[in-house]
């Protein structure tokens, strides 16, 4: 379906919105002697992977084995003790909270952003829509950290302190600006003739939006969904500021308190890191391309 749009979709390539040009002519010269880049590439791989490797193997060591063994060697006996301990420490509840907050924020945020983008692209010369567009563009420059105090005030006044909803509402709002930017750029590339033919068939704008634009925008929708899900899943500040009750914690905050709770039980701390990251890695394995294009969305130039 997306081939009809004739435009390169963000999923074509990792970071280049224009699509990869893989010039055969450069292949030779690049292969020839970029030894510095090659060295940096492999060194960086070690810099990234050594800590990751250490986290994983250490989390399977028992506490005594952890202190006694060579830290870079895998455990003699793979132990699940740390994982058992973390799961028994209410991990499931924090996990469920994170799922509720992420899903509860991202689904409405993406749908609202899609509708707004459709209106901005298809609504013609309308003062309200132009204003909305500039508000969203300006919103890209507002960091959540800087406005957290008024957000806290608003959430208390709405009597939503210590609720999952209290974390969901600001998450929705801060997912909107980038989503609108990415989605509206994408909808703009849908050929006009397709809208025309829908209209000649007598379809309303509402029908056109869901039946034509929505399926054609799917790659971009997946991108913003995954990207925003990652941001929301990893958010630490909102649960820190907006909750007090341990039962309302989401995973990043729980991780912080695990660290205080387990202290020197390093394998347990690392097991909690692995468990909180696992869902993201699964997501990454499924939607790697969309995620990468989402991470660099809008920064192509």
């Amino acid at each position, binding site marked *: 379906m997306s081939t009809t749009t004739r435009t390169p979709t963000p999923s074509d390539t*990792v*970071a*280049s919105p224009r699509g990869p040009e893989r010039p055969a*002519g*450069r292949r030779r*010269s*690049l*292969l*020839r002697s*970029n030894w510095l*880049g090659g060295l*940096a*590439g492999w060194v*960086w791989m070690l*810099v*990234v*992977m050594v*800590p990751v490797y250490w986290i994983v193997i250490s989390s399977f060591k028992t506490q005594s084995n952890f*202190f006694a063994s060579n830290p870079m060697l895998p455990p003699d006996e793979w132990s699940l003790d740390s994982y058992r301990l973390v799961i028994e420490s209410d991990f499931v509840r924090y996990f469920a909270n994170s799922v509720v907050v992420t899903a509860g924020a991202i689904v409405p945020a993406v749908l*609202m952003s899609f*509708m*707004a983008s459709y209106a901005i692209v*298809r*609504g*013609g010369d309308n003062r309200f829509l132009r204003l*909305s567009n500039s508000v*969203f563009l300006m*919103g890209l420059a*507002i960091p*959540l*950290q*800087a*406005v*957290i*105090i*008024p*957000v806290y*005030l608003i959430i208390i006044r709405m009597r939503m302190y210590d609720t999952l909803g209290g974390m969901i*509402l600001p998450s929705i*709002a801060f997912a*909107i*600006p980038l989503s609108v930017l990415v989605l509206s750029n994408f909808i703009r590339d849908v050929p006009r003739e397709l809208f025309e033919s829908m*209209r*000649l068939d*007598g379809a309303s*704008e509402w029908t056109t939006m869901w039946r034509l634009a929505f399926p054609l925008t799917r790659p971009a929708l997946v991108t913003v969904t995954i990207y925003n899900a990652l941001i929301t899943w990893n958010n630490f500040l909102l649960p820190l500021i907006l909750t007090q009750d341990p039962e309302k914690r989401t995973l*990043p*905050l729980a*991780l912080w308190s695990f660290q205080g709770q387990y202290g020197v039980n*390093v394998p347990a701390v*690392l097991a*909690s890191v692995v468990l*909180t990251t696992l869902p993201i*890695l699964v997501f990454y394995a499924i939607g*790697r391309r969309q995620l990468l294009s989402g*991470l*660099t969305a809008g*920064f*192509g*130039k």
Partner: protein
Amino acid sequence: MSAASGTASDAPSVTRRGGTRPGALWWLAVPALLFFTVFGVLPLLGVVGLSFARWNGIGAITPGGLSAWRAVLGDPGLAHSIWVTFEIMAVSWLVQTPASILLGTFLAGPQRYRAFLAVLYVVPLLLSSAAIAVTWKALLDPNFGLGAGLGWDLLSQNWLGEGALAVGVVIFIVSWQFVPFHALIYQGGVRQIPRSLYEAAEIDGAGRVRQFFSITLPQLKYTVITSSTLMVVGSLTFFDLIFVLTAGGPGDATRVLAVEMYQTGFLGNQMGPASAIAVIIVFSGLVIAQVLRRLGGRDPSASELEGM
């Protein structure tokens, strides 16, 4: 309401206008705008307002005039926070930019193994800053960390217990987390450089190094501006990582503006001064972004022709 916008199939006068019916769709943008206004725009105004108020975070909010600003600007702690913030900003820029350009150029090559390396590089981007901080804190622990386990004295220093070391550690971890992101941006930039430039250079006998400095780097000018803006403005809001890693310590060695704001407001119950610090954060970000944009010039399309 949607039915009203359906038109008869033979309405050439409407088709002529390119399929737009001004005004018919505006309401679709209302929910998104409403949400962002309530939780984005209002708080932005609110934080300015609160910086002129007295509030302990629980009780009533009363007008405070300039007292919050006077307290913040007269506090030597603020000057220190600003210094630490800009120190981390500048040094991490200096570390990250060359590394990202080098890795980005490397990743732009067509070889399969480079794509595979890119997959691994991105792993730190997926982790939450809290997870990264927790991990490195364990890894760098002088008694239980990697250095102690391997018995290497060089690695088993009290990394987070000494001011200068702690700042270095923060900069290192920030780079660990974000270099891959900027490398991906540079990868995109390098792939957009016209191949003909390299072919011409090759005919002229320019070597790889010469090509890099005479073509790749000048052509990446606007990518450098974009990446630097994100890096620098982003570093103003570092909170999670530093808060979990050092909580601003040891002493106040890593107390950046965002941590100072949190401690003043949510631990010290002085929301007025905390809001003033938040205003300083927003304002610095806008100023820096503007300066970088000026530095980059106004016409991004010019880059295509540079050096041709």
